């Protein structure tokens, strides 16, 4: 019987063990961070040595030519734009999600010039929202007539598309928290990139802004994000101290956050903005340049005053004006 009792004890222990002893549910493994790199968006750069900001002569402003005829017969000008770059081009939910901003003013002016007095933005202007990486492919494929979307003119891109004359001279700057631009020296003030030593700076992954800031101040701690708005999210969560990028983009970010400012500073780079056009559509490039000339002073000033000056030049002492065009292609 003692054997039976021992067996019973073992059996009872087995029964007890059978009632418990699930393995813990495993936690997922952390995915490895992938280092995103930016490939050039045009692989056949213009090596003619022509000044990249030089465009085609505007001509006499008569809207004729194969592309202009095509647009008129279609009845719509198709423009690739952004919809989330605040102040440059973003949706306004209060106006039925209409896209508006500095860039959009140019799209409307060009459309109005092509279609004349009967121009109706709802009917004659199609704003197609695109990403930055879609700018050159969609222009090259002929799906868009124009791209007006923070588009920096350079020789690399001239190899694939054509540009209008420069319509805004942007530059890479730094946005910081208001405590670094409140005049209190004890608290630290931002004047140039050397002030970023030891601070966390955000720029989009793989962007030239990120490379530029690293070159300008090697002790700055670079914190990449997917895009500039992603940088603002990090900034508002206290994960970064500064954001760098084109001043136009920074203006849009600062306008969304009362504690973000773009202090007076020398830009780290020159970013001449142009309107992108298919390489074949020289008649359209000329006409766009004509419209830009027509906008000089009054309309350009009004657009700048409405969208960018309140954030980029609140004191109004920068004397910013429409860039002087260069022609010669």
């Amino acid at each position, binding site marked *: 019987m003692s054997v039976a009792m021992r067996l019973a004890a073992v059996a009872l222990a087995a029964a007890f063990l059978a009632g418990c002893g699930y393995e813990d549910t495993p936690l*997922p493994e952390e995915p490895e961070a992938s280092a995103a790199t930016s490939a050039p968006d045009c692989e056949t750069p213009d090596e003619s040595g022509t000044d990249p900001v030089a465009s085609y002569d505007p001509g006499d402003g008569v809207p004729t030519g194969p592309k202009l005829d095509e647009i008129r017969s279609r009845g719509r000008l198709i423009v690739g734009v952004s919809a*989330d770059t605040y102040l440059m081009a973003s*949706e306004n939910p209060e106006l039925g999600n209409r896209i508006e901003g500095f860039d959009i003013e140019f799209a409307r002016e060009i459309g109005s010039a092509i279609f004349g007095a009967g121009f109706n933005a709802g009917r004659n202007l*199609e704003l197609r929202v695109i*990403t930055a990486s879609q700018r050159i492919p969609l222009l090259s494929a002929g799906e868009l007539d124009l791209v007006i979307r923070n588009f920096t003119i350079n020789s690399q891109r001239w190899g694939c598309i054509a540009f209008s004359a420069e319509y805004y001279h942007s530059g890479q700057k730094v946005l910081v928290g208001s405590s670094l631009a409140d005049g209190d020296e004890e608290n630290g003030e931002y004047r140039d990139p050397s002030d970023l030593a030891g601070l966390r700076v955000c720029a989009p992954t793989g962007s030239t802004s990120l490379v530029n800031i690293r070159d300008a101040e090697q002790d700055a701690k670079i914190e990449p994000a997917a895009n500039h*708005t992603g940088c*603002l*999210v990090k900034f508002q969560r206290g994960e970064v101290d500064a954001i760098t990028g084109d001043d136009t983009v920074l203006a849009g970010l600062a306008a969304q956050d009362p504690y973000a400012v773009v202090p007076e500073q020398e830009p780290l780079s020159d970013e001449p903005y142009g309107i992108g056009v298919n390489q074949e559509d020289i008649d359209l490039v000329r006409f766009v340049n004509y419209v830009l000339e027509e906008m000089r002073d009054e309309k350009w000033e009004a657009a700048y005053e409405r969208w960018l000056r309140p954030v980029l030049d609140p004191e109004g002492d920068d004397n910013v004006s429409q860039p002087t065009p260069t022609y010669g292609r």
Partner: protein
Amino acid sequence: VTQSAAAPPPATQPAPAQAAPPAKARRGFWPAPTGKPVGAGVENTPALLNRLQIIGVTTVLLFGLASALVQFLSYQSDGRAADDTEQLVRVQEIQSTLLRADAIATNLALLGGSGDPQQIADRDADYDTAIADVFTLIAQAAEAQPADEEALSALNVAVSEYATAIAEARSNLRQNFPVGKEYLSGGSSALRSDALPILENLVTANSERAEDSMNGQHPFWLLLLGALAFGVLIWVSLVLARRFRRYVNTGVAVAAVLVLVTTLVAAIAAWRGDSQNDGLLDNELRSAVDQAEARTAGNDAKAYESLRLVKRGSGTTYEPLWQESADVVVDNADPSILREWEAYVAKHKQIVRNDDQDFRQPALRVATADDGTGSNKPFSDFDTAAQDLVDENARTTTDQLRAGRAVALVGSILTLLIGLLAAVAVVRGIGARRREYS
């Protein structure tokens, strides 16, 4: 034990060496039923009876104990299967409710700050309820299954971060700041990269646990134990028959019959339980899991539909993701709820047609209208129908598992008692022979 100790030693107990030769001489001889032990006074009959009693009693007690244990394990196993099924359904409900919250939050973002206040308030309340349900379910799941605690803690953190991102998104979107869309899409994206993998692990772990537990019926082992015990009792009967010239020892025979009947009844009950569990696994539980998966994928798709409109011009990014989730719905959804899903898909196609042509307002109208003209109502009908099916099938599964396990518990107790009864029968049967001998 007491009987063997109390049995009086025979007056003229022969030495074992002397008993061997006559036994050999009678090999193959079947004794006449005289009631007297063959070779009495020559072999050590009381010792033999003691040994047979120990063997017989131990056998039936061990049979009773082991067979009862096997049935008790089945009882426990079915109980665990019911608990594991409930936990599986619970973690799947967390998964689908979390994506339901995301589908509502992304849809709410389309209304912005200037939409119909009543509609915004209703959707806000729906979102808050969904998130509150998720946190409640996480707490219940952590209490129900300690092995899930660590994963659920990590999930809790991920859901909190998601809820914070959505709160930030709502606050910014009300001010028409585009950064609100970044909070929203970032939150949705983090939900899928951080929270959903944890939930997938929880679903996998609990599916395996439920399936393992449902395979806890062992008719083969019951048969084997019964056959062994029965075989030993037959052997004891044969030895007794040879020694006492009686064909049947009533006590041992009763014990053998008890073992045989108990084994057959227990094995049949276990086999039926096993079949029932297989049926539940293949039908009700499978259906509950599939409909929960369809509901999760449906909400995933609905969130993508809203995200493509939140981020204007992102149709090429989000539509393939919508299609991927929609395929999961079609693969898993019960035909009875596919009609609701197809009604939703028709509205979705309307949204895509409008959005692809950048007809923004019509696309938004279809995506946000709560009446029959929009995609929200047919989707909500699908969501409710899917959840009803999950609830119904999960309830049937757990109810049947819990009802079936009572049979195993009663069987286990009865088997233990029958083992004791059989032991008494063996003792009495061998005691009768001992009395005859003395």
